[in-house]
């Protein structure tokens, strides 16, 4: 027994395991967008939260390789597709929590309660206020029409947000029509597709193109530094099924060492205080309906959201990627 304790001390020294209660989070959400929130949790509870950030794919491989010896208690992503994939790989465990059930609406969480959306991200249409009137805009599908020839800007199809958007479109319109729409987008491009939403929004503002599709919080962030950018937000598909939304969410890992603590953290994250932070720090929509978005976000109006269960996006993601490949959407 003494031997075992000595060994543990050595291993602890090697791996830096500390004695006090800890929760370890693997997150694909950029550190600067989650650490401040987790910091508040640490202060309130005295529980230490370790954060490992990285891309979804490598983090999931890491979880798989570690198996039952993973230090991770929570896996967090910025989109439903990867939550779906993690669930597929059996990396989560179901969580029974009344608080989570109350805080997170059904369409923003896994039907099996393996993961929960924590914030909602809407992907909608933006336009140059000097050259486009909002009346000219209507839906994602409309952006494929020839009237936008040479006027559309898009972010790369390699970003999961676009894969989710196209994935839900496949769900709504079927693959044939979706392929026609995406082909139309590609034909309308004014410039090579952009590596990120911010650059694309700036391009709209500078007049390189007239319209584009982006997540709203990039717009919110951009306005903080460039309030006079002549870019307007338009809620897409309001006369149809609503604007495309995705979730940033998390689940408790299957082999969590501190599953209790993990659930506690998830509950805390879905409650008012943390949700308010999500809303303010990153200008996302809170998942919890009791919390109002940041006033700036509210000022954009209250859009109708596409209420298909967001996990739909994950199951259609590969299909969406192949579709975009086929029409040459890079």
């Amino acid at each position: 027994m003494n031997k075992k304790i000595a060994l543990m001390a050595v291993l602890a020294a090697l791996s830096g395991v500390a004695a006090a209660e800890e929760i370890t989070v693997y997150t694909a959400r950029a550190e600067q967008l989650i650490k401040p929130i987790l910091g508040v949790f640490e202060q309130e509870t005295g529980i230490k939260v370790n954060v490992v950030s990285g891309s979804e794919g490598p983090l999931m491989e890491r979880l798989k390789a570690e198996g039952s010896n993973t230090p991770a208690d929570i896996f967090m992503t910025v989109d439903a597709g990867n939550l779906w994939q993690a669930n597929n790989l059996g990396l989560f465990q179901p969580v029974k929590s009344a608080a989570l059930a109350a805080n997170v609406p059904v369409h923003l969480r896994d039907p099996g309660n393996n993961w929960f959306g924590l914030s909602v991200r809407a992907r909608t249409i933006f336009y140059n206020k000097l050259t486009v009137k909002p009346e000219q805009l209507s839906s994602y599908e409309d952006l494929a029409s020839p009237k936008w020839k040479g006027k559309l800007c898009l972010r790369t199809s390699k970003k999961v947000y676009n894969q989710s958007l196209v994935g839900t479109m496949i769900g709504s319109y079927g693959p044939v029509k979706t392929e026609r729409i995406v082909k139309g987008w590609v034909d309308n491009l004014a410039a090579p597709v952009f590596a990120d939403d911010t650059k694309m929004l700036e391009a709209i503002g500078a007049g390189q193109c007239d319209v584009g599709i982006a997540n709203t919080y990039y717009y919110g962030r951009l306005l903080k530094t460039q309030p006079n950018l002549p870019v307007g937000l338009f809620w897409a598909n309001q006369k149809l099924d609503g604007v495309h939304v995705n979730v940033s969410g998390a689940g408790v890992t299957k082999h969590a060492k501190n599953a209790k603590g993990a659930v506690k953290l998830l509950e805390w994250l879905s409650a008012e205080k943390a949700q308010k932070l999500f809303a303010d720090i990153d200008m996302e929509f809170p998942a919890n309906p009791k919390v109002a978005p940041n006033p700036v976000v509210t000022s954009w109006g209250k859009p109708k959201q596409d209420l298909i269960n967001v996990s739909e996006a994950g199951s259609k993601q590969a299909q969406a990627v192949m579709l975009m490949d086929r029409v040459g959407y890079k």
Partner: protein
Amino acid sequence: MQLEKSLPSAERSPPPGAAMPAGISRRLASWPGRLLALAISLFTVVPLAVVMTSSLSPDPAIWQHLLEFALPELLRNTLVMLLGVSAGVLLIGVSLAWLVAVYQFPGRRFFSWALMLPLAMPAYVLAFAQVGIFEFTGPLQSLLRPHFDNMRWFPEIRSTWGLLLVMSLAFYPYVYLLARNAFATMGRRALEVGQSLGLSPRQGFWRIALPMARPWIMGGLLLVVMESLADFGTVAVFNYDTFTTAIYKAWFALFSLDTAKQLASLLVVMVLVLLLLEQYSRGRRAYSQAGRTAPLPRLTLTGWRGWAACAAASLVLLLAFVLPLLQLGYWASRDFANQFSADFLGYAWRSVLLSLLAAVLVTLIALVLAYLVRRDGGAVVKLAARVATIGYAIPGTVLAVGVFVPVAWLDNQIIALLGLGGEVTAVFKGTLLAMLLAFVARFLAVGHSAVDAAMNRITRSHDEAARNLGVAGWALLYRVYLPLLSGGLFTAVLMVFVDVMKEMPITLMTRPFGWDTLSVRVYNMTSEGMWDQAALPAIAIVLAGLLPTILLSRQQDVA
């Protein structure tokens, strides 16, 4: 030399390789060395094996899709990138090296080291800075736009040409450094020999200096090719799809790690073929340099020629270093107060510490490997060295998985063996050790090429002289090679240091809790398109790499 006396007038030198009879005892004695070389190659072989062992049955739906819609274009893109970047770095690197090594022109001394500075700039940082400067919304076009009816004439930076330009500017220092060194020791002499045989200086450059500097130039070029193949960050900024993109797409977007591994295996095979081709094309030629290396006076470029040389060097330095740094500085200044904090110093400190540790470790292993190759010279050791240095061409994230999986497996075995399940989650994973192992797998090529180049410059007679004096085996290593190699070793340390500073995916995957570095910070910011916030850590990476880069350049400046 001693042999000469006893030789009859028609001296015959023994055929190459037969200088020492390969007796049985000698053959047996060399096995420990071979095993050591093989053990070193395991650093790379194990991760590679993990990457290359995927389920044997390819996913037909995904493969069919890739073959039909993705691979043809991706392979073409990859080829264009490799050829274009090779041409670019050769043009920039070799011509500047030649100018600086052989001629005297205004500012030569400054450019000699300053042209190395872009080495400190990570390619992905150069990419986002350059795109920031030259794109539609960038300061240049914004400044010009009011004066023109339209800006369609302005070349699109986010294009193949833009990518080739940026990658060439980012990677040319590898070729420049090694070529400058080679030219400085033999360039001027090569010209003189050529002239004495009736060749003009221009012919002398093409027919003598260039072929003679080939192993050094090729060494640099190989690093460039491998780094380009493995690159993901830079091509992502340009949204240019390469073979590596396909690997990531199969993995991240199509959720098929097996397909990604199969693609990665193809990449490894391609690199191996490339390496073998290079090796084969050298044939029996030897490049160890004979004779004196006393510096010869430089040829002075007078009048407009001198200023043209100065202008060319300035332009490269401006585009590859000064302008991007100014752009980064501008971005950083917009959000400096928020970014510069105690945390920030922590990132910087960890980056430096990590780079230093990795640099020393990689260099030591590279030294042992280079020594074994020289001492043994057999096929087994050579192959081991080749394989050990292939990690540089594997996309960092893929290699990171290749390293992490066996380490995690080992941890699980140890934990199970000791019956500590549930109490301990990690032994080696998430430790500095695992991280350093991953860096060895990735950067051994960089260290090896520097040490090996220095090793090549030690003539056979050094060996023979030492053996003659009764110094052999490992004693030869530390009494003769180490002092002679100190320059090459220092080069290796500096180059690996700078490379680890810039490295991103392996650091992300294998770092211990809380071990966030500057490049992790850059990753977190750029992944959210927060260029302003990425600028400060990016600048810090450049600054931290600056001193080693300058040292590198100085210490390599033979003339």
